[in-house]
C-alpha cells in the first residue's frame, strides 16, 4: 500500500487516541492544578469508567445505543462519586501533603485494581458501540484523466471512531466553558491561585477539592466509556492511560490546562502515528525519557513560559 493512505489512517487512529487522552489528562491536570497533588490512582478511575460502562450496558440490555448512552452518563458519575469518597475519607485527612498523598493514591490504585479483579474478573469484556458503520477512506491518484478519487482496499475507519473524536471535542468545550465562564470556574481558579486566601474569602476549599477530585476522575471515566467499544474493559487497562497522562501533563506544563490539551493532541497523535511505523516499545522508551528530561531541564513544561 502507498504511504499516503497509510498516513491518513494513522492520523485518524492518532486522533481517536488523542481525544481520549485529552480527557484523561485534563482530569489529572485539573486535580494537580487546583489541589497541587498527583493522583497516581487516576488510571484506575479510567478503568472503573470502562468497567462500570460494561456493567451498565449489560444490565440495561436492549438496543446497544441506549445501553451506551446510559453508560456514558452513569459510569462517570459513579467513578466521580467514588473519587469524592476517597478524597473525603483519605486525602482530606492527609492535609493534601504532596508526598503522603502520592503514597496514599498508590494504595488506592492497588485497592481499586485488585477489588475489580476480584469482582469483575481477569477477563476483558467488550461494550457494543451504539453504531458502527464502516467508512472507506478515499485517496486520490494521478491518472491520464488527471486527479481521481478512489477507495484503496482495506483502508477504512468507522463512524464510531469519528464520533469519539467529536464527543471528546464537545467534552473539552464543556470543561473550557466551566473553567472560563461559570462562577464555579471562578471559584476553582481562585482556589488554584491560593487556597488559603480562597478560604479566607469564604470558599469552602475542602468541598472544592473533593469536587475537583471527583471531576478529574469522572473525566477519565468519560474517556474510558468512549474507548470501551473499541478497546474492551479490563482490570489492568488503567496503566497506560496513567502513564500517558503523566507524560502529557508534564510536557504540557504542570497545572496548565491549555498546555495539557496541546500536549495530549500532540502525544496522542504521535503515539498513534509512531505505533503504525515503529515498535510501540521504542516509542514508549523515548516518551518516558522525554518526560524525565523535561522535568529535569524544563520543569515548566515544553509549552509553559519560564517562571519569573
Amino acid at each position, binding site marked *: 500500500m502507498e504511504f499516503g493512505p497509510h498516513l491518513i489512517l494513522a492520523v485518524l487512529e492518532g486522533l481517536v487516541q488523542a481525544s481520549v487522552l485529552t480527557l484523561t489528562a485534563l482530569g489529572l491536570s485539573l486535580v494537580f492544578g487546583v489541589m497541587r497533588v498527583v493522583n497516581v490512582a487516576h488510571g484506575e478511575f479510567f478503568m472503573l469508567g470502562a468497567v462500570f460502562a460494561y456493567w451498565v450496558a449489560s444490565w440495561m440490555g436492549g438496543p446497544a445505543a441506549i445501553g451506551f448512552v446510559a453508560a456514558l452518563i452513569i459510569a462517570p458519575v459513579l467513578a466521580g462519586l467514588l473519587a469524592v469518597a476517597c478524597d473525603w475519607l483519605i486525602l482530606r485527612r492527609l492535609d493534601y501533603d504532596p508526598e503522603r498523598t502520592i503514597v496514599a493514591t498508590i494504595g488506592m490504585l492497588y485497592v481499586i485494581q*485488585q*477489588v475489580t479483579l476480584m469482582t469483575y474478573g481477569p477477563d476483558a469484556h467488550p461494550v457494543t458501540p451504539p453504531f458502527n458503520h464502516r467508512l472507506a477512506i478515499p485517496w486520490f491518484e494521478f491518472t491520464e484523466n488527471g486527479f481521481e478519487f478512489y477507495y484503496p482496499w482495506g483502508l477504512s475507519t468507522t463512524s464510531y471512531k469519528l464520533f469519539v473524536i467529536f464527543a471528546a471535542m464537545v467534552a473539552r468545550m464543556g470543561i473550557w466553558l466551566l473553567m472560563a465562564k461559570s462562577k464555579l470556574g471562578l471559584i476553582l481558579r481562585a482556589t488554584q491561585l491560593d487556597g488559603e486566601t480562597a478560604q479566607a474569602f469564604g470558599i469552602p476549599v475542602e468541598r472544592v477539592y473533593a469536587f475537583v477530585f471527583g471531576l478529574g476522575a469522572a473525566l477519565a471515566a468519560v474517556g474510558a466509556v468512549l474507548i470501551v467499544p473499541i478497546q474492551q474493559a479490563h482490570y489492568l487497562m488503567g496503566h497506560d492511560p496513567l502513564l500517558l497522562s503523566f507524560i502529557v501533563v508534564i510536557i504540557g506544563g504542570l497545572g496548565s490546562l491549555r498546555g495539557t490539551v496541546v500536549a495530549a493532541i500532540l502525544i496522542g497523535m504521535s503515539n498513534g502515528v509512531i505505533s503504525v511505523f515503529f515498535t510501540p516499545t521504542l516509542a514508549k522508551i523515548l516518551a518516558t525519557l522525554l518526560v524525565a528530561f523535561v*522535568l529535569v531541564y524544563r*520543569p515548566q513544561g515544553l509549552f509553559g513560559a519560564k517562571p519569573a
Partner: protein
Amino acid sequence: MLHLGLIAALVLLQFILPAYHHGNLARIMVLSVFAMGYNIMFGYAGLLSLGHAMFFTAGMYGMGLSVRLWDIPVGPAFVIGIFAAAALSLVVGLLALRTIGVAFMIVTLMFSQAVFLTILYFNPITRGDEGFVIAQQVRQIAGLDLSNPTTRYFAALILFAICLLAVLWLVRSRAGRVLIAIRENEERARLLGYDTWAHKLAAVVMSGTMAGAAGAAYGVLFGSVGASFAEVPFSILPLLYVLLGGPGTVIGPFVGTLFMFYLRDLSSSLTDAHMLVAGVVLILLTLFARRGIMGIVRERWLKWLP
C-alpha cells in the same frame, strides 16, 4: 547490640525453622537488603524514589547477563551487578537530584519505567517478560552450591549482616547525621556549611548500590532473572516495607519486609489479589502510622534506637 543480637538470632533460626519458613526467611533477608538500601534515601535523606526497581534490576541483570552472555562465574558476575547498579544510580542521581519533591518522584518513576521498557525492547538478549534462569550448576561460589537451602540461607544472612552493619555505621557517622539534617531542613543544612547536593548524591548511590546488591543476590540465590522485577509494583514494595517497618530506623526495613511477607502469605489463602493487602496497608500507614512499627517503638520506648 540489638543489631548483633538480631544477626545472632537469624543464625540460630537457621537450625530451628522448618523448611518452609527457612526458605522464606532467606528471601526476606535479600528483600530487606533492598529495603535497607531504599531506607538510606527515603528514611535518612528524605528522598522519596518511585523507581528503585531499576537499581534492583540493574544488579540482577548486570549479574545475570554476565553469566548468560559471557559465562562469567557467579562470584565476579555478582560484583559486576553491583557495579552496574552503582553506575546507574550515579547517572540517575546526577539527573534526578536537579528536581525536588513530586518532580523527583516522577523522574525516578520514569527512569525506572524506561529501564523496564529497555529490557523488553532488547528481548533477544534479555528474554524480555519471560526472563531466564541461572542454571543450578553455575550457581556456585568457591565450590559452595548456592541453590542448597542451608548455603543459600547463610549467603543471604552474610549479605544482610554486611548491609545492616554498613547502615548502622553510616547512621552513626558524621555523613549520616548530615543526611538526617537534610531530611529535616535542607536549606538550614546548606547554611551550616554542608554540601547538601554531594551528600544527597552519595545517598542515592549508596541506596542504589545496595538495592543492586539485593537484585544480584536474588538472581544468584533463587536462580531467576526477569523483567517483572523492573515493573512499577516492584518499586512500590521497598517503599511499603520501609513505611511499615519505620523509615529512618536501621532495622525497620527488615521488620517491615518480614511483616509484609507474612501478611501477604496469609492473605494469599483468602484471595489471589496479592496487591490488595499492599494497597490497604499503604493507605492505613499514611493515615494512621507515619512512623511505622520501629518508629513507634522508638517514640514510645526506645529513644536511643538508631
